């Protein structure tokens, strides 16, 4: 009970730190958005003033209208659904495979020494360069798209998990061992929590690349998805619609990153240092 109270006290403290200064908060909000707003204004003004060709860069309000149309017609939801299903599928699958595998590889140091060069090589092989191979092997359907996302997510996750496990402070291990912990509980109670921050770096990298790679993959051979929408709109000369697709992807990327950063803060809040 008292524990709960203490925690809420600390939470309140943190909140008051963040929200106690509405003026500072406002200033921060302005700082964060002013450049984007300025860019939107330029985007609106430049085509209207005839500085750029309206056909290739329509004013932002026209793009917004096209986006609204896509939303109303249900096309946007359909393409977004297809894209998200693929990228989240590959991303989650990669988490399920990479984290346990990385924990195991990191724990057995000799194994990781042998495997690391290969993993480095594969990570630096651009996923898109392998896309033709995937299409060849798995066809043009969903499987090859999920597979390419899986491939792109696998290596950042794997490498970060391995390095997380390998770089656990040896003193913590020594301290836990001195308390007679069995190898299994040592792993569960020390190794995993200690490597969580590094694992999260991998999760964030993987989250970003899951979307980047997917969109490109959808441009090559697909009949749905945001990548397809962009490509198709360009072919059909529906330029505002094309920009609407691009913006949707950016926003999804930002939201995904925001969610992951928040999850990270929640899980590894103990790592917050005096930086803030």
């Amino acid at each position, binding site marked *: 009970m008292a*524990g709960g109270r203490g925690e809420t006290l600390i939470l309140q403290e943190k909140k008051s730190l963040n929200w106690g200064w509405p003026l500072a908060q406002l200033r921060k909000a302005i700082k964060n958005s002013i450049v984007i707003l300025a860019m939107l204004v330029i985007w609106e003004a430049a085509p209207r003033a005839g500085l750029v060709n309206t056909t290739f860069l329509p004013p932002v309000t026209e793009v917004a209208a096209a986006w609204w149309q896509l939303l109303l017609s249900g096309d946007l939801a359909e393409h977004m659904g297809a894209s998200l299903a693929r990228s989240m599928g590959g991303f989650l699958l990669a988490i399920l495979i990479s984290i346990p595998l990385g924990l195991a590889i990191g724990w057995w140091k000799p194994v990781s020494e042998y495997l690391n060069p290969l993993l480095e090589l594969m990570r630096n092989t651009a996923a898109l360069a392998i896309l033709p191979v995937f299409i060849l092997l798995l066809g043009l359907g969903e499987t090859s798209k999920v597979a390419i996302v899986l491939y792109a997510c696998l290596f950042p996750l794997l490498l970060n998990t391995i390095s997380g496990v390998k770089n656990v402070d040896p003193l*913590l291990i020594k301290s*836990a061992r*001195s308390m007679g*912990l069995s190898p299994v509980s040592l792993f569960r109670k020390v190794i995993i929590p200690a490597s969580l921050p590094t694992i999260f770096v991998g999760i964030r990298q993987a989250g970003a690349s899951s979307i980047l790679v997917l969109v490109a993959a959808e441009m090559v051979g697909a009949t749905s998805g945001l990548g397809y929408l962009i490509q198709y709109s360009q072919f059909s000369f529906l330029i505002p619609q094309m920009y609407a697709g691009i913006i949707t992807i950016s926003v999804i990327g930002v939201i995904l990153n925001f969610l992951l950063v928040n999850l990270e803060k929640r899980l590894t809040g103990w*790592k917050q*240092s005096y930086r803030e």
Partner: protein
Amino acid sequence: MTAKISIRHVQKSFRIRRSPGQHSEHQHALSDIHLEVRQGEFMVIVGPSGCGKSTLLDLLAGLTRPDSGQLLLDGKEIAGPDLDRGIVFQQYALFPWKTALANVEFGLEAKGISRRERRETARHYISLVGLSGFEHRYPYELSGGMKQRVAIARSLAYDPEVLLMDEPFAALDAQTRETLQSELLRIWEATGKTIIFITHGIDEAVYLGQRVAVMSSRPGRIKQIVDIPFQSRRNEEDLRSNPEFVRLRHEIWELLKDEVSRAQEQEKQKTLDSFGGKETLLKGGA
């Protein structure tokens, strides 16, 4: 007199490789350590850096095994790490993802104690080390001295027979160190634990120890054991200016003086060997 801990003719050496490509060689860390620690005693081991103090502590903790000789706790050979010995490290070794309270509970968890009892015991020890009100702070929110208090509470909480302390106050500032020294004496008197305390500070050794074992430079031996006959340290206002304190301090300083300069020579040689291997080889050839 029954010994709580007996260290009998313990030897330990390591295989080290000075620089890549060279053959590894044996280096004696400890040679023929012989020491008995009584039940409830505060034993301080003082020695120059690199004399194998920490190796000795690892042996007592059961983290490594001696090459020869025996280490006994209550007459039974130390077979491995266990909760009958608690260790306090210089760098605290707190789990950064756990609050102070959860850190103290850690050892109790390993002992298989129920959650409620764990919480109660942990709170008791947190207040024993004077940290009530900081139970839910994470280590990054605590000062060095507070972290070390948590670490001491953690080691005491699972009620070990012996507390092993490896230069626990070396990383703290002078004032915090003095406070924690007298706090430690208070805790020792309150709990009656046997404490083996390793340090390179002579003042600290004389202030804390009932006996001070002076170690030689590498390979570490027990050079001499000095009795510190103060009855109650905590009643004395300023023990450090007591003439007897000064005399004992000087005695240990005399014992250590040559060892320290020898240890520094060794350190220099080691640095030369690992960074300027070629030069020393040439010199050796000539």
